[in-house]
């Protein structure tokens, strides 16, 4: 269902890493939905028991997104959605989506290699919606599949990789500017510096830096950033290398160091998720 995958776009996602799920089965998603629904209902009305399978005001759906993977060994991604039913007319179809979360693994074969078959590797988890729901869903998964959720923040180094990689992606002409936000450390008041570049300029710069297409090295990324820094220094006499890169936003996606990301281009969806999967795997290993 390409629409389901498209629902990932243009939303602010919080990133989590998840250790492998124990005894998870993709064939039992409906059952999981019922159990999670009852769990959420019980959580919301603390102290009252809820029978599993009875309709509650929050409806839970689990959906598999097989197209969201890098190679065939990857587990199909799983979308969890919570929608509220209006209590006035339970039959009506106007369900409002209140929370969604997505477990995925794009080219995570590094992790797959050593994991026995009882475990399912979906190391990257994206959540959009109230954190209280994230907490409920997360704790249910932790209890049910003996896994562990952990916030995934993005280091400045990885952000600069994203800036370089995404600068090289070709986008349509009237795309929004590439923006890098830097935070100046050790100040009493927070001071952020925003550095916006025309995406075509960024691409032109990256093309001069990159030696072999399809391959990126740390040196190239450093060089790319150094070029941007020296340009900035020429004009403003500020050494950006002494600051901390906190946010990268391009036409492809925008990422913040606190572990949130917004995906904008469906064409580069798997590419971005692949990078994030790698980060998640490195955090859980």
């Amino acid at each position, binding site marked *: 269902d390409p629409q389901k995958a498209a629902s990932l776009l243009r939303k602010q996602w919080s990133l989590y890493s998840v*250790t*492998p799920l*124990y*005894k998870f*089965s993709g064939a*039992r998603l409906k*059952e999981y939905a019922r*159990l999670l629904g*009852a*769990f959420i*209902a*019980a*959580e919301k009305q*603390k*102290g*009252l*028991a*809820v*029978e*599993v399978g009875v309709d509650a005001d929050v409806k839970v759906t689990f959906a598999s997104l097989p197209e969201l993977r890098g190679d065939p060994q990857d587990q199909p991604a799983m979308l969890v959605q919570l929608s509220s039913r209006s209590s006035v007319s339970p039959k009506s179809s106007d369900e409002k989506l209140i929370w969604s979360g997505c477990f995925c693994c794009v080219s995570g074969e590094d992790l797959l290699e050593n*994991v*026995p078959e*009882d*475990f399912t590797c979906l190391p990257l988890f994206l959540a959009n919606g109230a*954190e*209280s729901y*994230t*907490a409920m869903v*997360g*704790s249910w998964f*932790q*209890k*049910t599949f*003996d*896994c*562990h*959720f*952990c916030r995934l923040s993005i280091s400045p180094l990885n952000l600069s990789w994203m800036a370089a990689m995404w600068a090289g992606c070709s986008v349509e002409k009237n795309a929004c500017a590439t923006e890098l936000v830097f935070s100046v450390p050790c100040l009493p008041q927070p001071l952020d510096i925003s550095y916006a570049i025309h995406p075509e300029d960024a691409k032109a710069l990256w093309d001069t830096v990159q030696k072999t297409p399809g391959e990126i090295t740390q040196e190239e990324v450093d060089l790319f950033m150094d070029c941007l820094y020296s340009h900035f220094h020429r004009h403003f006499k500020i050494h950006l290398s002494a600051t901390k890169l906190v946010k990268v936003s391009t036409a492809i996606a925008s990422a913040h160091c606190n572990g949130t990301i917004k995906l904008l281009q469906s064409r580069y969806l798997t590419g971005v998720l692949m990078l994030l999967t790698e980060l998640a795997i490195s955090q*859980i290993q």
Partner: protein
Amino acid sequence: MQRKQSSKNSKQPLQVHHSNQTDLSAWRKGGKPDPEKSLQNPTSHNSQANESEQDSFEQAVSYFEKVQSPVSLRKNEVLQKHLATVESTALEKGLPPEAFDVLLNVALSGKFADAVNTRLLKSLIPASVIPESSLVSSVSWLCVSKCSGSIQLLFIRWVISMFDFIDHKDQLHALYGFFFSFLQDEKMCPYVCHLLYLLTRRESVKPFRIRKLLDLQAKMGMQPHLQALLSLYKHFCPELVSITLSGRMKTYFKNSEGPWKAAISAIRRRNQKKSPVFQPLLLGTTQHQSRKRKWNTQLILPASSASTSNLADVKDKNSDLYNISKSFPVEQLQTFSQLLQNIHHLELPSQMGSVLTHPLLLHYMNCIKDESIYLRLHYWMGQTLQEECTWCVVDSSQYEEEFKDFLEIVHKAECFLQEGFSSCEEFLYRSLPFWDGFCCRSQVLRLMTWIPLSSFSEMKSYLYGPLAQLFFTSSLYFKCSVLESLKELLQNWLNWHMIELGSESDSQNHSLNTTLSGLVNVVAELIHFVGRISAIALQLENNVTFLLYFILDFYETVCDIYLRYNLPLLIMPPAGVFYPALLSMDSVSLNQLCYIMYRYRTNLVAAKENEMIKKKVLQFQFSSQTYQEYNQYLIAMVGCLWTSNAFQKDIHPEGLRLDEEVLKKTRVKDFKNSFNIVYHPALMGYALLFLQQAWPDDNTFNFSLIKGRKWNWYLEYLYAQGLKGLKLFIESSISRVSLVSQSKEGNMVSLRPERGCSCWRCDRVATQEEEEEEEAAGAPACGPGTATSLLNHRDSPDVARSPEPPARRAPKVGPAGSRFPGIGAGAVGRREGARCLRPCPFVAVYPEAAHAPWPGRKAFALALPNLAAGELVVGNHVLVITGKTPNPSLAAPLGLRQVGGRWNSSGQSWDSAGGTAAPLQIPGESVQPRPRSAPHTALSLLPAAMPAPAAERGGPAARPAVGAGRGTSGARLGAAG
């Protein structure tokens, strides 16, 4: 809230049951000899009275058994009497199992008024157990509802209170549905919930029961007793019902023990030995959530709970039932015997982290080889440690206590399993570089002791690097605790190796896949690491005894590796550890060192023997260097302690050796004695006490009196003072001439006798050659010739060489001699001689760029009392001058004393006080220091303050037993003669 379950469950052997089902007379016999009760009850001293008591109780029971029609209590004196008998017996010693059937029948049949029934029920206190059958029959009375509601209620409360004393519960479980139907009664509902809570097993949880409870919940609202029962249902069957209890702990059930509380505690006290283990069943509400923290940032050890992993079977009821009968849920696992019975179909908790606090599951983990268990735990623990690490994660320092507790739990589990978790190892490697050495110190160090044995490259960069940095920059106590932890780490590794050796046959491919050589290398690296940091730490901390104790403690394990752990590895301590211990001010350290040297010897002898017995090329042999090092140390030790050859016999390159001419210039008489067992600073106190005891009238403290037979007495005295290590060392390593013929070791071919001490040769072939050559040349290996040649130094060519060093010896000792000048070889002064106001100090000469600690530092630091700290460069040697003021007490045995009452006397005070002082005079061509720093201050080297032991009054030569005639006091181990 506790879920109490008797250990006497249905699966216990039948004989227990029988032993409880005794008849009245048996109970009576059993009751009599109990001394405790007879003490409590003075009347029972009279066995007659006791007998009559039993009779009256039997009469009472038979009365209640036979009574037919309802009787009024007030009018019937017989009833009153019997009732009182039952009550008093119950309170005094409890009722026998057989009485319950009768009394419960009476109480619940409604024959008497409620007042009588109440009194009967309240006095139903068991002496040992309550037979299950009596309960079943009384439940049948409830069904016909002959008794009033209040009696029914009291009965239910009684069952709850006495639940642990019911001998079996199988039939009671079969009545689950019956009890469940009592939920309808509003008054009884709370107590019935409690009883059901005690009775519920997984198979009791049924969808229709859940629906019934949910109806009750809808009708009565949020009732704590319903919540508790429902949460237990959820615990067993999360796939059927869900409930979240609020975080606050509260009482879920009304207290039903009321009337029996005192009696129950009395029984418990009585049966203390066989009381069941009460283990709380976690409802998932015991986690304290006192603080608001973001989701999942709170450290929670998961409670063990049923897993939903077998959800697939839920659809098919039959398979579900089948499954239940097969698997044993972890919630019911409360005793070790249960574990044993169900070990093959134990269902593990849904969250593996809960095993950490569950000792039975840890047992299970220990014996099962299921990778997924460890993997689940590994993932969870790795992430938790990473997230909670208080010094790695910002803003988490306030949760240090919590993290500490967690680390404690992890460490306890590791100790239990006798195995380290790989996630802990990773955590240490990740977080140690950022550790301040303070936060959770003891916990982190304890975790360190369980680092699994792995390839060394990782250890070096991840553990040793950061640890060494912290070690050098932290306090003495930190240093000691690190050494202690590393000792435990070493012991754990060695134990692991022993276990592996034992189980080698049955486990062919171990995950670690360590070969013996790999293992030896890793262990050796650890020992070398500890050696390095210990030597440096001793310098940093001024050879403090406390530190030395921990270092020597480590080497007590090291010296015994070959014999105790069967690992072919022996590593001698570095000179930076050995010499500070040898010259220590404390007898404890010296004694410890002696013990260690004795163990080294034992191990080396054993290794040598094994080599000879097997007559084949072993894969691992101790290198010749090990033997050499041992010999060098032994020579130094015996030279110092026994033969009074300090400063002469030491052939260790970093050893304690001084040019005789230099020593002469110190004007210390009998410097050779300075470190023998009488004058050694660690033992001088003993010598003093010995003198006081031996010559009570003599106040001159003439130490030289200790010689000859007194020397032996003194030795015995030292042994009696608890210096066992010294005893073992002297008895093993020094065979005295008079004892040579009896010495067992004298027969040992491999042992090579030396003058003054027994030494080792490693290479047998070479040893034999040497032997022959020596015999031909008549020069012992460490005889005077050799010693002289050692003193030779290429930078001071004019220092007299040994007149005729044996030519073939020269290459052997030459390199060492030329590399290191020996301590004190550069002892220098000013050429101007006697009139010099600022004589050059007696200085320590370090080989250039040698950062190895100078072993004799403590002793020789004395010679530089008033110099500013700094360095001088002389030739290719660095002269290190410390600014420490030495301990005057140390000066005495060296023959040094203060000038003008102060150590830092100026040149003037030198002059004024120096009537007796003669500045050092330099032999014509000695090395001249070229001071780069401040001008030198004066230094005095004066004759000893103590009465200097004159040569004619004592010394080794005068000791009869010590072979003075041969110029040596040591005896030979081998071919002595």
